[in-house]
Structures are given as C-alpha cells and as structure tokens.
C-alpha cells in the first residue's frame, strides 16, 4: 500500500505540499513514484518562475512512462532540489524526504486550504 504521511497537503495530481510559513516544499507522493517506477529524468521549473496552482510546470520521466509535474500553490519557484535532478532515483527511494522537488514562495498561505488532506488523498487513490 502507498504510504500517505501526515503534516502535508496533497494535490489531485499526486504531489505533496508542505507549508512552512510563506514557503511550500513540493514533491511526488509515494503512490505516484510507485506507479511511475524507475524515475530516470526530471525537468523541473526554473528558479524565479511565477507559477499558478494547478499549472503544469515540469515533467517526470520514468523508463516506461512520462508524467507532468504540477504546481500545488500559486507563487514563485525559489529553489530546485538539484540532487534529485542529477539522481532522480532518489524520488523512488524517499519521495517525502530527500526526494522533494522544489520550493515555492507562496502568494497566499490560505490557498493551502483548497488542497486535499491526507484523509481525502487516501480516498482519491483508493478509487484508482
């Protein structure tokens, strides 16, 4: 079973978002990494890019599949996890930790309320 952690919010597109004050850390959920399996390449958004919640901002390529990466919240990309860019397999090994993807300076922390709770995300993936 896919691991769903507490203390973060989730998108319908299978990203997790961890709010820390006025920034948010985003990554791929355990369910998503397991479905994709063998992630070999990521194309992250550029630092400085303004992104809107729900907007495709990059791609994740696995051996046999490719998936879009979406911004969970509106704001500006302020950091990319370069370690994951050079070794994307980290996402498969530790999706909620070392495998984080990027950091957003968020416009409106209240926007996080529109994201899914762990309970809601669990229901979402149960339907798959």
């Amino acid at each position, binding site marked *: 079973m896919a691991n769903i952690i507490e203390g973060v919010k989730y998108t319908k597109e299978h990203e997790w978002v961890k709010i820390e004050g006025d920034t948010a850390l985003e990554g791929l959920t355990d369910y998503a990494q397991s479905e994709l399996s063998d992630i070999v390449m990521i194309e992250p958004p550029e630092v400085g890019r303004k992104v809107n919640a729900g907007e495709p901002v990059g*791609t994740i390529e696995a051996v*046999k599949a490719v998936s879009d990466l979406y911004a969970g919240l509106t704001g500006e990309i302020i950091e990319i996890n370069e370690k994951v860019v050079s070794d994307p397999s980290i996402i498969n090994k530790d999706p909620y930790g070392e495998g984080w993807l990027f950091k957003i300076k968020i416009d409106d922390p209240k926007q996080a309320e529109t994201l899914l709770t762990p309970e809601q995300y669990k229901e979402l993936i149960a339907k798959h």
Partner: protein
Amino acid sequence: MFKKTPFYEMHVKNGGRIVEFAGFLMPVQFEGIIPEHRTVRTGVGVFDVSHMGEIEILGKDRLKFVNYLTTNDASKLELNQIQYSTMLYPDAGIVDDLLVYNLKDRILLVVNAANTDKDYQWIVDNKKYDIDIKNTSNDIGQLAIQGPKAELVMQKLFDLDLSTLRYYWATEVKMKDIPVLLSRTGYTGEDGFEVYVDKKYAAQCWQMIFDAGAEHNIKPIGLGARDTLRFEMKYCLYGNDIDKTTNPLEAGLGWVVKFDTGDFIGRDSLLKIKEAGIKRKLIGFEVIGKGIPRPHQEIHAEDGKIGFVTSGTFSPSMNKGMGIGYVEKPHNKVGTRIKVIGKTPVDAEIIKGPFYKQGSRQ
C-alpha cells in the same frame, strides 16, 4: 476474461506487478525495470514467455510448406536448427516475425502472443501440400533464462554438455526427469536459453531453475525489462517497429528474406519494392543531452517531418534516452542529426544498432 500462464501464481508470490498484455495477465516488473535489466546484463534472470504462441506444422511436406509460408530459407534447416524469419501478406506487409524450429517430427513456429490467433488462421487459410497444423499454445509453458550466468545455472539440470548447444540450435532432452525442448535463443543480447515444457511440469520446472540459480542470485524478470533489453539490441518488436504496414526490407530484416530459394507469400510484391528502391529505413538514434523519445513522436530534419518513432525509452545500459523509428531516405545515414518532437523537442543523432555491444551472446 484474461488468460493466465502456468507460472502466474509464482509471479504474484514474487511480488510481480501484474498487467494485461496480449490477453494474458503478465508481470511487468518485480523489483523495478532498471535493477531487473541489470540482473540480466550481469547475472541471470528468468522471463515467463508462456504467452508466446506455439504452432506446429506436421506431415511430410512441412519443410516445403514453411519455406512457402516464410521469407527465410527454411529448406536449408538442419535437424534441431532454428531460424528467425517473417511471414508476409501478399502486399509484403508483415503478418508476424517468428522462430522456426526444425524438430524431429514437426516444425515448431513460435509467434508473438498478440498474433497467435491471427497467425494460426493465416497459416490455415494458406495451407497447401501434405501437412497438418496444430495450435499448441495453451498446452505449453515457456521460460527464457538469460544472462552471462545462464549456462552455469542450466548446466546443473542437464546431463548434456550445454557448451555444445550453439546459438539458434535446439534439443529435445530431459531436464533432470522432465521432458523439455531446450534452445539457445533469447531476446536480450545475452547468452541464454529458452525452455518449452508441458504445462503439467511447469511448476516443477520453475522450481528446478530457481533452485539451481539460487547461488547465482537468479531472479524473475518482468515484461518491462524484456522490452528495454530487446530495445538495446535494436531487435524489432511486432506492433511497434514492424506490422502489416511495414515490409522486412525497410525494417532492416532483409537478412531473413531469401528471394532465390523458391516462392513465398509476398515475394512478388517485395521484389517490386526492392527493385523500385525502399523509401524509408528503420533506424536507431540516441538523444543528445536530455530527453526520452516515446513511440509515435514525429522525427524531423531541418526541413520538416521525415519520420516517426516506433520504440523509445530510457536505455538503462547507456543511461540515456534512445529510440528506433522510420525515416525517409536519404535521411537514414548514421551521423544524421534529427529532432524528436515531444512536448519539448529533443536533438538526437542516428546511430548504428545494436546500441548495446557488450552482450554475452555468442
């Protein structure tokens, strides 16, 4: 209702991720495509390929009939020799690619799983001479044991000295006490064997191989790695690189077409195509920089579209995106720069196949 191979329960027990493929429930992966790929390149792995179709041709004219049915020269097959070949439609489009086993009392045709019913019907419809045709696909389990350590493992199960069984030869022999058809064949570029066994012995056969391979860390391998392994050898996959809209000459399979050894279905059309000159070629390419090509993406030269991708993936051995596709002549030359049009277009260069050249296959 999907079919299960005689090894299905083993896949579930080994944690295989099961998907539907060609009407069968098959494991696409166990521990992951990349580690499984490496297992086969460096050690030994076992593929369940029982979904492949087996069609037997019996009767005294069987060799003559198969020579008419297929493009390669079946007439020169010796006893227990195997040949890679194709079957064509009258317009030279490919019905299927297949292995032809010339056995003591029959010819065994091993065909692609997705094509078994179509092929059987095609063969029946084109039947001539004194022969019988039997589809034995549902009675047979098939395993492919592949990798540089395959012989080490398999030797434990046979009295026969396996170093005498050469590439593309077979023998009907006992594996310990079970009767099997053993051949030195595979779809990986590594040394290896394929074992055909009556499904009543399937579980026993699986156990024997895994017991023998335990000390060499033998592992089950899924369809995902089967595809990346064959891809690195630029072996054609029916449904991707070849199908009824492609002919063997443009697919680089001219070496299994013998025009001067008697008539075969599709010969006249293919000869006309050859004389007129083929318009496109199946080429291999590697991405320059980042990006992974995917099937159906367009291939462009500076002046626009010149072809399309038929197979594209990340190559675990070369650690980069690579592809196979058709491009119009004269854009097919090695060294030609192309662009593969995905969401973000990527630059690539046409290279010679096979991509992976260090395989243990003799």
